[in-house]
């Protein structure tokens, strides 16, 4: 079991750690407030999310469409010998715009929403039940899955898996909607075990075949874009699965899997990796797994125990994680007290840093950790920081005016310049006026805001000397330069 953190250990550093990991970072004022409120109250604020926090109004375009009619129309145009490609392109173009907007919408929830842990957990489940627009090809379905993940993010795990087994985006992604009695599709059945519940090595090929039969009859209604069940496609025969025999349903399979000891271990390890430590020692995984079993896979109390534990605040966990690209974008915006980058710039940045929301590389999701960082992504982070701080004026000409048709959705070059517009940040929000002429104090204030682990005095001196070299009365531009430098460091990548 996890050991509760002693109340006396609650301090500013631990408060900052919790706000980084359970949410998306915080300003010094917010950290101080959390410190004053105490551990229990701060954890409670994160975990006890009001029911309506999950009822988020969808983006305006996110409603079911009659996809069947749309496809019939394209087919009819094709049959009439008309140029149906234009129609398909229009659909794709709309899909591209909707996806940019969906990413904007979610980043806005993370940055400004009332329940950061809910968004963080939704992000966790998105990586866990990884599903990509590249195959699903419909923004409404991607939103619908996101909504399902959010509504169940802190609830019961087996309930969530059952909802996901009926989620159209997932069904398309893993070909479940094609599964018929005569041809049970094993793609979903395999990933359900390998990636979603018990992990590799804890099932047999026979288990996959039998469970694939149990999930037959799951269908999507293409006129309403909703799940439907087709009893005539279902295999009603006897199935033998992990010691159970009978006319097992898909839900029976999920219940069986979640009851296996391997499931709590698998989910526990993944949760700990996401929230605390990339490389968890076995005893900690055992403790988290025990916590999960104790709470019968109810995620909310599990998270409460994790965030209240001494292990979560250990040296191993604190300041040791590389920010994911999404964390980088949201946390930096918070730290700089600046709006999120414009939708298109944010999407491009996610692409360059290797984590595009709603487009994980494959069904395994993002590996994270050191895999976020290569020479190219690190340099990109440094240069992206420059854009976040100084705005679009610093972008080189070829970025501000890309080639015509450079990418799907970005083809309209005239709109593009507008879509990446950004003002420089307001340094007055970060540096009190009375410190303006005191380089050392400025560096101290900024370091506290930007770094999770306090830099050594020697480094602080180097920054201060740099600022001093700019003259006795630094301009806003000088200060932005300093902030960019502080962010263009290995240390800034850590949270």
């Amino acid at each position, binding site marked *: 079991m996890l050991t509760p953190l002693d109340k006396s250990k609650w301090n500013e550093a631990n408060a900052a750690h919790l706000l980084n990991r359970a949410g998306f970072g915080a300003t010094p004022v917010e950290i101080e407030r959390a410190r004053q409120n105490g551990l229990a109250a701060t954890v409670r604020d994160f975990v006890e999310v009001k029911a309506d926090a999950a009822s988020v109004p969808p983006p305006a375009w996110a409603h079911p469409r009659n996809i069947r009619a749309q496809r019939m129309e394209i087919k009819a145009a094709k049959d009439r010998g008309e140029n149906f490609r234009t129609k398909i392109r229009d659909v794709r173009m709309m899909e591209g715009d909707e996806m940019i907007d969906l990413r904007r919408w979610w980043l806005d929830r993370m940055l400004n929403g009332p329940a950061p842990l809910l968004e963080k957990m939704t992000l966790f489940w998105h990586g866990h039940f990884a599903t990509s627009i590249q195959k699903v090809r419909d923004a409404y379905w991607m939103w619908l899955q996101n909504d399902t993940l959010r509504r169940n993010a802190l609830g019961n795990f087996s309930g969530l898996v059952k909802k996901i087994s009926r989620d159209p985006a997932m069904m398309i992604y893993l070909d479940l909607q094609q599964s018929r009695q005569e041809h049970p599709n094993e793609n979903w059945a395999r990933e359900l075990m390998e990636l979603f519940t018990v992990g590799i090595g804890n099932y047999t090929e026979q288990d996959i075949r039998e469970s694939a039969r149990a999930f037959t009859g799951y269908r999507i209604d293409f006129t309403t874009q909703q799940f439907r069940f087709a009893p005539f496609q279902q295999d009603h025969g006897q199935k033998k699965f992990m010691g159970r025999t009978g006319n097992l349903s898909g839900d029976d399979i999920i219940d069986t899997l979640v009851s296996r000891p391997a499931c709590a271990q698998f989910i526990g390890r993944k949760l700990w990796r996401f929230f605390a430590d990339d490389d968890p020692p076995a005893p900690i995984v055992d403790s988290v797994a025990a916590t999960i079993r104790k709470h019968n896979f109810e995620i909310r109390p599990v998270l409460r125990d994790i965030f209240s534990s001494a292990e979560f605040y250990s040296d191993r966990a604190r300041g040791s994680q590389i920010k994911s690209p999404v964390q980088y974008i949201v946390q930096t915006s918070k730290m700089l007290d600046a709006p999120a980058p414009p939708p298109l710039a944010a999407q491009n940045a996610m692409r360059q840093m290797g984590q595009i929301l709603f487009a994980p590389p494959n069904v395994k999701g993002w590996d994270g950790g050191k895999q976020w960082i290569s020479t190219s992504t690190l340099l990109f982070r440094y240069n992206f920081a420059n854009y976040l701080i100084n705005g679009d004026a610093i972008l080189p000409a070829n970025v501000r005016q890309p080639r015509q048709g450079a990418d799907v959705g970005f083809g309209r070059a005239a709109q593009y310049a507008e879509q990446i517009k950004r003002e420089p940040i307001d340094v007055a929000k970060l540096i009190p006026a009375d410190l303006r002429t005191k380089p050392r104090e400025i560096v101290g204030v900024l370091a506290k805001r930007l770094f999770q682990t306090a830099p050594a005095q020697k480094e602080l001196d180097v920054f201060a000397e740099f600022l001093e070299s700019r003259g006795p009365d630094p301009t806003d531009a000088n200060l932005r330069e300093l902030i960019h430098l502080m962010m263009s460091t*290995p240390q800034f990548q850590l949270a």
Partner: protein
Amino acid sequence: MKTKPTLQTRRKFLRTSMLGAAATWTLPVFLEKTFFALDALAADAATQAVTGKDGTVLVVLQMAGGNDGLNMVVPYADDAYHVARPRLRLASEQVLKVDHHIALNPKLTGVKSLYDEGHVAIVQGVGYPNPNRSHFRSTEIWQTASDADRTLNEGWLGRYFDNCCSGADPTVGVAIGEETPQAFAAKNPTGVTFSRPEQFRFRPSEPGNGQMSAEEILFRQLNETGGGDDGGTAASNAGGSIGAIPGKTKSDLSTLDFLQRTALDAQLSSDKILAIARKYKSTVPYPQGQLAASLNVIARMIAGGLPTRVYYASQGGFDTHAGQINTHDRLMGEFNDAVNAFVADLKQQGNFERVLVMTFSEFGRRVQENANGGTDHGAAAPMFVFGGAVKAGLFGKYPSLTDLDRGDLKFNTDFRSVYGTVLDKWLKAPSQTVLGRKFPALGIV
């Protein structure tokens, strides 16, 4: 004071002299520590290293979107071809005949000359079992060299970097483009990605005026010393103590050490790439177009001796569902002209013998043309492998145009046979380790 590691190999010398050139102040403890770890890596026998002036180079050329193999390597003597392609067929009079059965697309004049010179291997009927017809999935299969029913995270080149190049220079893999190809995905990410050399650099806030700004100078200091030079940061960092022990692999470094090393790598690579880009310009004229521009960058990097083993470039636009004839001809022309210039450039440099180019596409296209003068997603297709040391000829068998799998050509050569051969014979890397099992070798090199 620490004792400097003795430098026994040329590569170690290069690495350290680069550092020497970049670092204008005393080596801080952190760097000593990291370079000890690097040194341990260099001792690893499996490590693949080139100095940039010798050693073989692989250039992977992706034709994205699904290239119509039937109109690239044309079975002109087969009636079934002309029947299936009433509008798209290339007439026997126009095509560039290779033998009595197959010919090249009329636009591939340069490739044909190269073939006649004995430098092109045409591998026919390449694919894999249970072909997937989704761009996304099939590209992933080619990039990761997985079976069709398996998902792998690491790319095949990434596994080559992981297994055979640990401790090598980060420019061991260079991808030209906006995004790193999945083929490069690795447990310990290495390789660099950029579309223009000028782009792969740190941009200071203040505009440059030819000289290095104060900001840039400080940036260099910060990212070379990592700042944690007196142990202050390292000690308070969770994994700091781990990093103090020289590790065998990059993954043994603590997270902060890992970041610091990558930052240093980024800066050294950026310096090298920019320096080469400034110094080496091609005298061979290149045509317009994305692929030509990419190959031009690669040729300059090769000329400048970047210690790279694998370059990656791609040409897009092959998803020709409608009005294919003009589009595909244009793409073939672009490909031919870009390759022509690249080969001429390499020959002039004297590097043609060192370079092997391999093309691939996620799938070929349906044998039967569709109602819109295009073709739909197919399966097996040919690959080109060319270079000064390549054994020319036809490999594999041209698939039957009548014995089809759901309207598509059946493969007879697994694409991993081509990868395996390139790994074993060209890069001298154990293909079994990289691909997970042994595939039959081809006599292409």
